[in-house]
């Protein structure tokens, strides 16, 4: 006996994907859902840093693996866009590959590794080293959108705290670090204040990347699928990392340069090259590193 399995139904929308996945709408989500997400995005842009609840859909990729970013990208991407996807700054990390394939398959859009060629960049944990422009959108994947969550687990409470601009607890937490360790110990997902109002989680980017968010010409969109929240930083918006006058915000620095391209200004990953723990440092932004090498820059090649 043969069992007939119905084919996935197309959505109610009619706009078909020229080179998308048969049976599915362009960029997977149906047009009604995209509209719902775009409404949330518009609200998010209108209230920079405010977390807008949205009817996050179940995606064919797991929660915690970029479903928020994927939904945001699906809602803003068009057939003429050029998509770049990075994870840890690199285009070839497995999850970045998986998400890029998802959009290549469901939207048939052009994809690229080159930051400057991309119109939409979806990222996890990094902001590219090359400054972004007004013609680009940066979509962040966000695991926990609530910057106060580690201090107050209840959503009912944290929403009130944001409404009342009650951020004392965050400052106290940072101050406690200074009192105990002499410095603020948060190294990633370092809280920022957006447009002088909302305290916002920048997603788990290293604090090295925080200054790039400030007055960035590109639109920054944040999607948290599992937590069902969207937020945004419009172009040229103030984004200040929280700090104290006597303990100003600082970013990571390395004594080493990139072993491959010699960069002194990029975020470096530490790579262990033998079983004795010998280290070398390479750019986390793989495109930046390659561009520099193609332009003739060279590092010391690492331990010989």
């Amino acid at each position, binding site marked *: 006996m043969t069992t007939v399995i119905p084919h996935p139904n197309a*959505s109610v929308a009619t706009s078909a994907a020229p080179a998308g996945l048969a049976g599915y709408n362009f960029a997977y989500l149906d047009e009604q859902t995209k509209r719902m997400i775009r409404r949330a995005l518009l609200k998010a842009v209108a209230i920079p840093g405010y977390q807008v609840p949205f009817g996050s859909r179940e995606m064919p990729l797991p929660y915690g693996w970029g479903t928020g970013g994927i939904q945001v990208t699906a809602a803003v991407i068009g057939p003429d866009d050029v998509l770049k996807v990075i994870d840890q700054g690199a285009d070839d990390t497995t999850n970045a590959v998986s998400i890029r394939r998802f959009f290549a398959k469901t939207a048939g859009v052009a994809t690229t590794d080159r930051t400057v060629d991309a119109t939409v960049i979806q990222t996890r944990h990094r902001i590219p080293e090359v400054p972004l422009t007004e013609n680009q959108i940066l979509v962040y994947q966000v695991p926990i959108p609530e910057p106060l969550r580690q201090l107050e687990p209840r959503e009912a409470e944290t929403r009130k705290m944001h409404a009342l601009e009650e951020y004392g607890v965050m400052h106290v937490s940072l101050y406690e670090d200074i009192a105990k360790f002499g410095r603020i*110990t948060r190294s990633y997902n370092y809280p920022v204040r957006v447009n002088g109002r909302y305290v916002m989680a920048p997603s788990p980017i290293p604090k090295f990347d925080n200054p790039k968010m400030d007055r960035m010409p590109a639109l920054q969109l944040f999607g948290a699928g*599992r937590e069902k929240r969207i937020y945004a930083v419009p172009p040229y918006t103030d984004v200040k990392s929280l700090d104290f006058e006597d303990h100003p915000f600082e970013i990571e620095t390395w004594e080493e340069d990139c072993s491959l391209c010699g960069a002194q200004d990029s975020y*470096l990953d530490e790579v262990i090259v033998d079983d004795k723990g010998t280290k070398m440092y390479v750019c986390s932004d793989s495109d930046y590193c390659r561009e520099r090498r193609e332009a003739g820059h060279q590092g010391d090649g690492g331990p010989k």
Partner: protein
Amino acid sequence: MYVAVKGGDRAIENSQKLLDEERRGDPRVPELSLDQIREQMSLAVDRVMTEGSLYDPELAALAIKQARGDLVEAIFLLRAYRTTLPRFGVGEPIDTAKMAVRRRISATYKDLPGGQLLGASFDYTHRLLDFALAAGDERPVAEIAPEGVESGMQHVADILDHEGLIEREDPDDENQPVFDLTRESPRYPADRAARLQNLARGDEGWLLALGYSTQRGYGNNHPFAGEIRVGEVAVEFAPEELGFPIEIGEITVTECEMVNQFKGSAQVPPQFTRGYGLTFGHCERKAMGMALVDRALRARDFGEATEAPAQDEEFVMAHSDNVEASGFVQHLKLPHYVDFQAELVTVRALRRKAEAARAIADAAE
């Protein structure tokens, strides 16, 4: 010389081929058919339909086959498919009092209208591995009873209701919109409709453990299994162009109504209260766990203390979904080396500071 690792693309492709091969197992063993899964692994199918929020035994069987029997993965597959389906509208509420009952038991009355009906149950089996079953090819046949089961069995809770001994349960205003957890993000405090939707697709293990915790004293609500019933109910839908409901099919559901003691408060006289559980198919353990947790979450409504985990709405609801939980726990497998590098830089700086402090202390001695 070190070269940055490339090849995520090929690795994924190869990994997926290997996954397919492993799923199939030894090719000399006949392949599972969906009919076999649907007919012989029916309780797995029921769980996947319930937590996958989609009543389709055929697709649930496919999901189980594709997931190699990993039910949480199968639930995920079904959910991801479900979101792509267009919505035609909202059905009429099912009427479980009109259920064609296959099993119905009450722990609160020895006998009651409609009677106790054991049906098919593991309950009184001795859990002895049946080696005859291992040999296969058995065709058990159950005899057909001389008379049929009464149709339309009154709910046990309604019997108590006649006496006013149990809290009344009035239907919500039909004109008020009902929260839809598949379309909206949860708001806290949540109403009971939102809570029940959440519990209905919540992980069986989560509800089982939380329900169990209430029995062991973490938010005890003195439950009695008022009634558990399993059977078929009609699904009705009122198309706009018709204006009246028509029957469009039949589904199997399991319903559990817990009857809980309540000592009364300043406003409410002593009475019994309710906890409710409902699942697709035959998922008794889940329905009972759900009913216990539903009642525990109503503590606030009755002015009871809310100190136990099972009574904590945000705690229960935010962590009940196994597709969400599985994804987020397992996302720790994704690379985190940028953040780890940031932590390395911080830890080294803290250690340098601690070492410098120790050196100064040593010098002073």
